[in-house]
């Protein structure tokens, strides 16, 4: 995990801290990071396990089943890798926004609308052009749809100073209903009784990796999140965004075009969420059924925070979450614990993370 040692992004600020973090031995610093990362995870699993006990479910059996189905079984681990694709893209988009100090909480709307448009478009294009061109066009359109759905919050934030938390959330609620309207009224497959879009033939989907069932979407996700990490930490453009995030007024005085950078951040962040929607359709679903909404974005937010906006650490956490999510879906059928449980785990994880950061700050302040 390169770069983790020099970056500590507290929960106190939405943006990234620019100053290098702790002093002292590199090993001690690493040990501290390990504790601060694994502590909340263990704490969240224990507390969630207690909840399972209260509900009359054996937590060890549940977690064991999750690990078996999400990680150890050949089918499960392949599903886990496939699930990582869109989640990594969403995480990449969130890293761009959060490092630039912008709360893009509208990822679910951006994701879903892109998914619906791609699902409507790709089966129409498939007979007309070669597969690679269909996929390329669909990915591009997905990114554009996602970005377009963030335009209103972006302009309101950049030029009117309207709080983007509210506007992006509103756009998500609007977008989810709008996606349903599109599926039911305009993009509906006339040959099915259930309202859904036409289905993209398996031959026209994103290619699978080697002889597995893993969709190559996971590669797109890995490339995107590493690219985002490098751009945000190693380039002038990334530095500009981080300055805007750390201190918008200082950024104005430094001669940066803050409104333009704000709109760009939104477009990048939402574009990546849109790309995630396209990858989910082209690689996994093949169509969109009415009322389908996996609501990935809100659950990825805690993972990105846990990774302290570091791209490489995010990959690890997205992997863990994918295991939990794929395993949880199987466990829902076997143990009768619905998948809502994953939401509780993520929420407790977030709270534990906050408490850990607080304790760490206290400890450092005491040691100074």
């Amino acid at each position, binding site marked *: 995990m390169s770069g983790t040692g020099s970056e500590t992004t507290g*929960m*106190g*600020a*939405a943006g990234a801290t620019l100053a290098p973090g702790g002093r002292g031995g590199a090993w001690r610093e690493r040990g501290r990071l390990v504790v601060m990362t694994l502590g909340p995870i263990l704490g969240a699993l224990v507390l969630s396990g207690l*909840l399972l006990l209260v*509900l*009359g479910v054996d937590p060890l059996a549940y977690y064991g089943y999750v690990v078996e189905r999400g990680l150890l079984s050949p089918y499960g681990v392949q599903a886990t890798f496939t699930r990582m694709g869109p989640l990594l893209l969403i995480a990449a988009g969130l890293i761009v926004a959060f490092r630039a100090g912008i*709360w893009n*909480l509208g990822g679910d709307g951006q994701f879903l609308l892109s998914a619906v448009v791609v699902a409507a478009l790709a089966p129409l294009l498939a007979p007309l052009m070669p597969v690679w061109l269909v996929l390329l066009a669909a990915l591009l359109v997905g990114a554009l749809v996602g970005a377009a759905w963030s335009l*209103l919050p972006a302009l*309101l934030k950049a030029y*009117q*100073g*309207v*709080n983007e*938390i*509210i*506007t992006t*959330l*509103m*756009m998500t*609620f*609007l977008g989810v*209903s*709008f996606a*349903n*309207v599109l599926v*039911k*009224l305009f993009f509906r497959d006339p040959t099915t009784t259930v309202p859904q879009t036409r289905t993209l033939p398996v031959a026209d989907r994103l290619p699978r990796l080697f002889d597995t069932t893993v969709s190559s979407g996971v590669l797109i996700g890995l490339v995107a999140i590493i690219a985002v990490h490098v751009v945000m930490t190693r380039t002038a453009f990334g530095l500009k965004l981080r300055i805007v995030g750390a201190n918008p007024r200082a950024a104005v005085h430094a001669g940066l075009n803050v409104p333009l950078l704000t709109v760009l951040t939104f477009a990048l962040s939402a574009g990546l969420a849109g790309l995630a929607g396209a990858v989910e359709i082209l690689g996994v679903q093949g169509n969109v059924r009415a009322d389908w909404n996996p609501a990935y974005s*809100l*659950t990825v*937010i*805690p993972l990105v*925070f846990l990774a302290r906006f570091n791209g490489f650490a995010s990959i690890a956490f997205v992997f863990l979450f994918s295991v939990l999510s794929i395993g949880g879906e199987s466990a829902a059928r076997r143990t009768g*614990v*619905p998948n*809502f*449980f*994953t*939401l*509780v*785990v*993520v*929420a*407790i994880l*977030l*709270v534990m993370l*906050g*408490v850990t*950061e*607080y304790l760490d700050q206290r400890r450092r302040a005491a040691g100074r």
Partner: protein
Amino acid sequence: MGALFTDAFLTSLVLGALTAGLPLLLAGLGEQISEKAGVLNIGIEGMMLMGAYLGFVVAYTTGSVWLGFLGGAVGGMAVALPMVVLCIRLGLNQIVIGIALTLGTEGLTALLHHFQFAQSYPRLPAVPTLPIPGLSELPVIGPALFDRPAIVYLAILAVFVTAYVFRSTQLGLALQAAGDKPAALDAAGVDVVNVRSFAVFTTGALAGVGGAFMAEVGAGIFVPFMTNGAGFIGIVLAMQARGNPFWVLAGALLFGACLSATTALQVAGVSIPTDVIQMLPFAAVLLVLVLFGRRASLPAALGTHYVRGAR
């Protein structure tokens, strides 16, 4: 279009606006109190949902509407408690914790509902109404406005009480100072942390009652995720109301009318997919933000943690 505006249509539109708007009113009012004191309460959606769940459970098990509302208030305050401890006492990020509380409550209530009621989906009996003599006889608005459950009148009364507290009491002054210049409040010998904690608990109670209203009066049933963004609309109401509770009331009725348009249009015999109608309140919120976004006023110290003696 003339046929649309029959008495039945108008009554159901006004009634629906009130029924759908009341939870928004309580959420908006609660959020306004938090924001006035300098706390951006993103967890309000979770507080409403917990209020809806607990309100339903208590009303269902005890058979008492009023105990149900009390349960709703307790549920909202139970979600407010971690917010108070983590954000106001320890100073963690209000937005991150707010998201966590909303996600966690969504998961927890859906989980509990699954284990308790997923087989039976019990319904509550209709909440008895309290007709106001004379006024309830009026055509159209009489049955829609003046023949409602007593909690409706109390909620409207809460608007006046909040306005009075804001304008004419020490408490109102302390709340405002906690949001605008916490250091000054501290210097005056009032504990900022306590004032803010009080504000967040009040928000939890109001939002919880709002959620309980959705479950007990609005739907008569608890459904996972049933608040569906009502708490977030409450945040917008509070932002646009610029510290004035009466604007929250006006906005809540406007958005309530949008939310209830489905039922009213069905009464009028117009068939539109519910998804189109569900877009209405959010579209209206965004329109309001586009038109008046610049004029939204928020306290200077909103979202920041106050540490005594820190610069």
